[in-house]
């Protein structure tokens, strides 16, 4: 029996309304009640430290065909590889570095949000090689021929649910993401923009119908994570109208909106773009069924990576450097467009301000999730700076002082005085993400939880505080001790296995045979072909 006591720290666990000095006990990989007596235990002195559950990143593009293509597209950025990884050049990190950087910041679960089902096997082979953290993936559904064919043929909701259940199970996903529903399929027919009620010519199906079908399918299957929706018109001035319409179209059903910042754009102001963040915050306060991650822009070079090929195809004109990789795929494909968010650029400056506005204007931190949509808005390594800007008004003012005035004139950020508390941070990065993903034993420090614990030295410099945890345990084992990273160890890949009617398999088989001449088993992710033994853990669906 292993027994650890993290003693004397400030425990911040909103799930038990705890914000007080105390001890956290870990026994055999789980959080435990304080034992009776004075048993032999390894004691970690956390005096002057904040103790939280391990953080969870619900939306970070760290593996997959698109990430691989982005690496290939930017060889010139590797000339800077001798610089520390924190000095982001926009070229994606390798898997070990990814895990290490997350662990050092106190993260213990990361979710790759866009896995093409046809690429699931290779993606999982990469995902399992990210050390230190548990991983999960969302499968991309919504522009694929099978689903669109079912909707065109007016298949029953049960049949659609069976297909989605089969897809999530075979691709070992924790949930489903729909990306520019209908728009990506329409691009293949040379349609360059797509609205909520536009229909794909080949199928006669609209975006609204696709999203509704996916929401209902996930609900029928009992998948904890609601539909993870990347709606259309990403990044365009006026996209706030799309976001509002998308929220209302959910009709009160659970929905998660991805990287909301990229949809919080109005059309006012001198350069035709303004903040719609406050309006969207009001929408979320009225629609508690909707959650959102922000996709915060942080200044610097990056390579945008998205399976929204329509947006990426249209974004080629802004590529910096002037090159791109756009790949039509079976279903979504992918688009890689390098970009540089420059603080002196009024559009990039406004994007940064809009993201912070969303964080600060959405009252409930359980409705908004900290993401940069890594690497699209910036690298995940900028989270500590983002936390500092949320917790400390002067930190964001220091950035605002560097920005073009025109950008701030069409944003409400300068008037916002709210500062996040440690509790808010714990809700946003621990409690709420765990609940969203259905991880009942993560995101909190109550007895029985997986012992994923992060310890930070409390400091007025919040960026420094959250950049390097002093201690981090994963399953009760130290992956960071006294600020030093331990040798890599490998966690699990979390996925759901919903019940579905196996009668759907022959239908899928016919469709796959028509398209590829291959059986659907070709796309399975066999556990026997993974490098680590038993890398998968099933997350329970609701009955």
């Amino acid at each position, binding site marked *: 029996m292993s027994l650890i006591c993290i003693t004397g720290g400030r425990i911040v666990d909103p799930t038990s309304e705890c914000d007080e000095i105390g001890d956290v006990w870990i026994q055999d990989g789980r959080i435990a009640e304080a034992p009776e007596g004075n048993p032999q235990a390894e004691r970690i002195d956390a005096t002057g430290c904040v103790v939280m559950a391990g953080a969870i990143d619900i939306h970070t593009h760290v*593996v997959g065909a698109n990430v*691989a293509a982005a690496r290939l*597209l930017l060889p010139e950025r590797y000339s800077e590889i001798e610089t520390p990884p924190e000095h982001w050049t926009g070229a994606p990190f*390798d898997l070990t570095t990814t895990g290490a950087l997350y662990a050092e910041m106190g993260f213990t679960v990361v979710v790759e949000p866009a896995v093409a089902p046809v690429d699931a096997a290779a993606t999982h082979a990469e995902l399992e090689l990210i050390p230190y953290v548990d991983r999960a993936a969302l499968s991309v559904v919504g522009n694929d021929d099978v689903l669109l064919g079912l909707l065109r043929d007016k298949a029953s909701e049960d049949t659609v649910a069976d297909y989605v259940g089969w897809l999530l199970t075979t691709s070992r996903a924790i949930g489903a993401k729909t990306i520019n529903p209908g728009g990506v399929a329409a*691009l293949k027919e*040379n349609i360059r923009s797509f609205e909520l009620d536009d229909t794909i010519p080949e199928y006669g199906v609209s975006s609204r119908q696709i999203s509704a079908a996916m929401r209902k399918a996930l609900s029928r299957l009992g998948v904890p994570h609601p539909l993870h929706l990347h709606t259309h018109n990403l990044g365009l001035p006026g996209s706030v109208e799309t976001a509002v319409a998308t929220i209302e179209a959910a009709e009160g059903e659970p929905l998660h909106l991805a990287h909301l910042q990229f949809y919080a754009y109005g059309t006012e102001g001198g350069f035709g773009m303004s903040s719609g963040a406050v309006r969207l915050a009001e929408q979320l306060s009225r629609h508690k069924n909707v959650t959102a991650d922000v996709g915060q822009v942080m200044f610097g070079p990056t390579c945008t990576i998205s399976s929204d090929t329509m947006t990426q195809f249209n974004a080629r004109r802004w590529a910096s450097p002037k*090159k791109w990789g756009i*790949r039509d795929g079976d279903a979504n494909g992918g688009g890689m467009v390098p970009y540089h968010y420059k603080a002196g650029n009024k559009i990039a400056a406004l994007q940064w301000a809009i993201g912070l506005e969303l964080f600060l204007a959405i009252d409930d931190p359980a409705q908004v999730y900290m993401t940069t949509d890594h690497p699209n808005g910036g690298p995940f390594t900028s989270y500590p700076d983002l936390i500092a800007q949320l917790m400390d008004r002067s930190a964001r003012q220091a950035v605002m002082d560097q920005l073009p005035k025109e950008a701030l004139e069409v944003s409400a950020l300068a008037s916002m005085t709210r500062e996040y508390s440690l509790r808010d941070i714990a809700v946003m990065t621990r409690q709420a993400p765990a609940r969203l993903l259905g991880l009942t034993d993560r995101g909190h420090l109550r007895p029985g939880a997986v012992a994923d614990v992060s310890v930070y030295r409390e400091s007025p410099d919040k960026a420094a505080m959250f950049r390097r945890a002093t201690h981090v345990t994963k399953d009760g084992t130290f992956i960071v001790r006294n600020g030093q990273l331990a040798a890599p160890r490998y966690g699990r890949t979390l996925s759901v296995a919903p019940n579905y009617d196996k009668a759907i398999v022959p239908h899928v088989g016919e469709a796959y045979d028509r398209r590829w001449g291959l059986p659907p088993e070709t796309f399975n992710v066999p556990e026997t*072909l993974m490098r680590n033994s038993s890398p998968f853990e099933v997350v329970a669906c609701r009955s």
Partner: protein
Amino acid sequence: MTIFDPKNSTARHGIEKCAILLGQSRAPIIVVNRVDLAGAAAAVTLARQAGAVLDHTAETGLAPAQEQGTLGTVPGEAHVRADLVIIAGPVTDRLAEDTAFRRLASPSSSRTVIRIGNAEISEELFASAESFTLGGQGLSEQLGILSAIAQGRPVNLADNLAGEAKRFFAEKLSNAKYGVFVFAPDAIDPLAQFAMMSLANTLSAETRWTVLPLGRPRGQAELIRMSQALSGLPPPLSFAGVRPVHDRLVYRAPDLIRRGEADAILWVSACEEMLPDWIDDLPLAAVTARPDAIPSATTQISIGKPGIDHAGLSEDDVTGFATADAQTSAVTKDSAAQILGAITDQLVASQTGAAA
């Protein structure tokens, strides 16, 4: 640590000799061809441990995509949607045998197939494909002519393109709903690839055009992807320093050998392949699916082929993605991943012993 027990004593002895070769080398090169994802990952781990340069001989065709980007597609999507396919450049044996190419290059009532740039092709297979001689000195120049036609620019065609053909191309290029340039990346020069990509971009202003390299060596994609995932870098790359370094001009195996910057080679291939002549120039150990593949090798270890002799995740010709290949042979052979993992373990043991 799990100790891998190879299937025969020859392999056991070979593993030790490979580790010695790499351990004693000051500047080893590990050349990897056509392995599955696990084999690719094991090769990266071994290269890191050995401080070696990791290259693969099939990188031809990467540079234009890296420098210019691509508007690409996948074989399945092209097969379903393409109404105009232009086969650009020679049809190599590998391209002609490619399942996706054979599906795509067969004309149908809904698809026109055109050949340019000396795209010699079996008439028996693609009897109704239309072939045009565009003139010019090569494929890149012919693509330039097509670009001029597509954009309505004047072009001197008096000797090499009749007016009828010019009208044909102008109409076909701009009216295609989903046009695809298909080519074998190792059969055309980078300039032609640049020209093709530029033309696809130009045409995509109004309609949809993509490029689709086919007939690549199987396993190329896996190695590129896994070496990038594990190192952060595309191949070729060197693990000789504290951090891996990528430079496609510096770390190409044949160039390193020609310049005298390497002193040993570990050649890894899980499939049949053509062998370059430069591999005879240095001490060489071979881990291959053909036990007698390289006569000059000082050590040879036999491995199985993924999807035949053992299960693996390998690139599928039709989808373009790595999919699960079950073992089809009754006899299981050691995989590249197992042998390379064992060499790594042996190397670690010898390095640890030497340090002690």
